[in-house]
């Protein structure tokens, strides 16, 4: 049985994994880059080891170094979290070769799902619907035109080895087919050294819905229902919810079965996610499989009541799944907001810096997966997500109300965050009514980013301004006063105590 785990990640997901380790009595080893000495995941771990410089390639992506530390500290397993090495087949293989359990997908599954054309073919063989298109590379411009017209425009040309939007071309007009095919191909060669290009029908305004699956080492696979991830800005998820407002029980059962079939097709083990595009008529198409834990996994945990990291560890320990498909039930509704240190009013510029003060939302139905704390300096080297705010409530209406409440309670000073932007999203009628697709944020862009106050049926603009003036002004004059005679009282509230004790007019 696994007794010690190296968590090959940082920030909130590292702590997320360590929390489950702590509960299971498993020791956690943190690794950290030189700029992450003060990251809370280092404090949280039982053991910690610095693995190199700030740049990810020198530390969190440094396979040799991580394997070296794993052996030196005698760990039984490595959990990669998400990002970094989590979908790196070579790393999975290397762990296996070194006799260390990799708490992630098997190497073969990562490789197969990483090749898009191969994955499409595999899904078709397994009876999982894919977006209409080719199952193999397109050789010539003539084929490209013929096939594209056969599928019906609009279509997308995509690089088989692709990722990150490179090598993708969208075509609405017949006359653009040739040019698009050729640019896609040349971009594929320059970006991935592999010019294989295929074509797919372009689904307009789709919903992005994904199914969580878990598979054990005995071939058992269950799905844990869906997550709705259509609230995206530039293909980045901003807010997720479960269940999907679009879903029907019949569709859930059907898509769930396909998700299980997809996972079984690659002999999947561990936690994974099958992403689907769904159109307004509830046609669904396999998009890709993420062979790791997702950022948004907590909303599934809240709704089905399963700790996914614990189950990952159980599976890695060679235990059979604790439950069968019929044991999985959704209860209530969960929403996740990604809290980022960024300036939403200024084109979402990242805003690293020092956190002065945090007030965390508490109470019923609130979960905060975060790693920042008072006085923490958010480094500029990694992404801007500083935490995930998750709510659960008995139904969608109550969950939305709760998210409003907890965004109201969450106070962060010192760096700019997207909390106010998220709060505005919660008010948009399409969101409230559950009628939105992946175009949602783009369509509502002007409302969401213009300098408008959050509609919380409160005080006027000018009243807030006066409050701001009063707060700053009083602090200023109290400081002026206090700088004159030094007080020995260093209690944290000394300022207001002292202020309260004195009376009368202050000269300024």
């Amino acid at each position, binding site marked *: 049985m696994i007794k010690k785990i190296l968590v090959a990640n940082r920030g909130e997901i590292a702590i997320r994994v360590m929390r489950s380790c702590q509960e299971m009595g498993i020791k956690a080893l943190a690794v950290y880059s030189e700029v992450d000495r003060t990251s809370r995941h280092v404090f949280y771990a039982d053991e910690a080891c610095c693995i190199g410089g700030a740049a990810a390639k020198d530390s969190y992506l440094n396979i040799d170094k991580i394997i070296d530390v794993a052996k030196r500290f005698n760990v039984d397993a490595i959990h990669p979290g998400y990002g970094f090495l989590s979908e790196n087949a070579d790393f999975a293989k290397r762990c296996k070769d070194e006799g260390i359990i990799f708490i992630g997908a098997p190497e073969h599954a990562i490789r197969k799902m990483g090749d898009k054309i191969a994955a499409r073919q595999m899904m078709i063989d397994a009876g999982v619907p894919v977006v209409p298109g080719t199952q193999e590379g397109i050789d010539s411009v003539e084929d490209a035109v013929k096939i594209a017209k056969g599928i019906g425009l609009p279509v997308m040309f995509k690089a088989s080895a692709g990722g990150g939007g490179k090598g993708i071309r969208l075509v609405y007009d017949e006359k653009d087919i040739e040019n698009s095919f050729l640019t896609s191909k040349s971009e594929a060669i320059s970006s991935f050294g592999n010019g294989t290009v295929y074509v797919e029908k372009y689904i307009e305004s789709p919903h992005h819905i994904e199914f969580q699956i878990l598979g054990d080492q005995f071939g058992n696979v269950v799905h844990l229902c869906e997550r709705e991830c259509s609230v995206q800005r530039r293909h980045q998820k901003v807010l997720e919810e479960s269940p999907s407002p679009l879903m029907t029980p019949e569709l859930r059962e059907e898509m769930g079965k396909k998700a299980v079939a997809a996972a079984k097709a690659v002999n999947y083990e561990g936690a994974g996610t099958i992403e689907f595009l769904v159109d307004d008529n509830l046609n669904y198409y396999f998009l890709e499989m993420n062979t790791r834990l997702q950022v948004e996994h907590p909303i599934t945990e809240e709704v089905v009541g399963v700790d996914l990291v614990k189950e990952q560890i159980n599976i890695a320990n060679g235990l059979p799944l604790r439950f069968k498909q019929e044991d999985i039930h959704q209860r209530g509704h969960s929403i996740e907001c990604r809290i980022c240190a960024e300036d939403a009013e200024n084109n979402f510029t*990242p805003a690293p810096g020092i956190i002065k003060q945090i*007030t965390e939302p508490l109470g019923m139905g609130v979960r905060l997966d975060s790693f920042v704390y008072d006085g923490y300096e958010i480094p500029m080297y990694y992404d801007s997500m500083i935490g995930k705010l998750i709510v659960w409530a008995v139904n969608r209406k109550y969950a939305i109300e709760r998210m409003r409440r907890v965004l109201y309670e969450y106070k962060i000073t010192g760096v700019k965050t997207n909390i106010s932007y998220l709060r505005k999203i919660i008010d948009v009628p399409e969101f409230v009514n559950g009628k939105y697709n992946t175009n949602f944020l783009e369509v509502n862009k002007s409302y969401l980013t213009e300098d408008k*106050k959050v509609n919380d049926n409160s005080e006027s603009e000018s009243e807030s301004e*006066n409050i*701001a003036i*009063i*707060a*700053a002004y009083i602090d200023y004059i109290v400081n002026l006063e206090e700088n004159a005679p030094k007080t020995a009282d260093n209690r944290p509230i000394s300022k207001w105590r002292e202020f309260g004790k004195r009376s009368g007019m202050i000269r300024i």
Partner: protein
Amino acid sequence: MEVRIGNEMAEVELLSKEDNKVSISINGTVYDVDIVMAENGLCSIITKDGKSYNAEIRRPDKGNEYTVNVLFDSYQVEMIDLQTKYLRNRKNSDGGVAQDRIFSPMPGKIVKILVEKGDKVEAGKPVIIVEAMKMQSEYKVKNDCIIKDILVSEGTTIRGDETLISLEPLA
């Protein structure tokens, strides 16, 4: 005392103070409030008619400009004391508030410098690219100007608010 909030000015005066109860005049309107404030900047204000407000203040590292959050809004509030006034007046006589430097509000790394010392640059032209948290930002000059000095080089890591390029405005 003069107080600047955003782009507006206000005349603020403390009228009286009894324990935590203060009476303040803002542009002539009197506000009676009960105020307490914690060392970490949390501030609770109860107005005369019983409304309970919270503000989170971030004290200035230098100068007199506070950042104050009230509900979902963030305000820059500056106390205009004698020194601030002096500096401001000097600046005004020096040629208005024309842009005299390029700086990044947040820490980052210099990806690319697009100009050289002595270059004449047109308004709106980007001069430097800074990267932080996997995102790149371009900084542009606001007016026609000459590049007076370049204080960083490509690959340098910078702090927030650091001057990267100093500018000589063209009249």
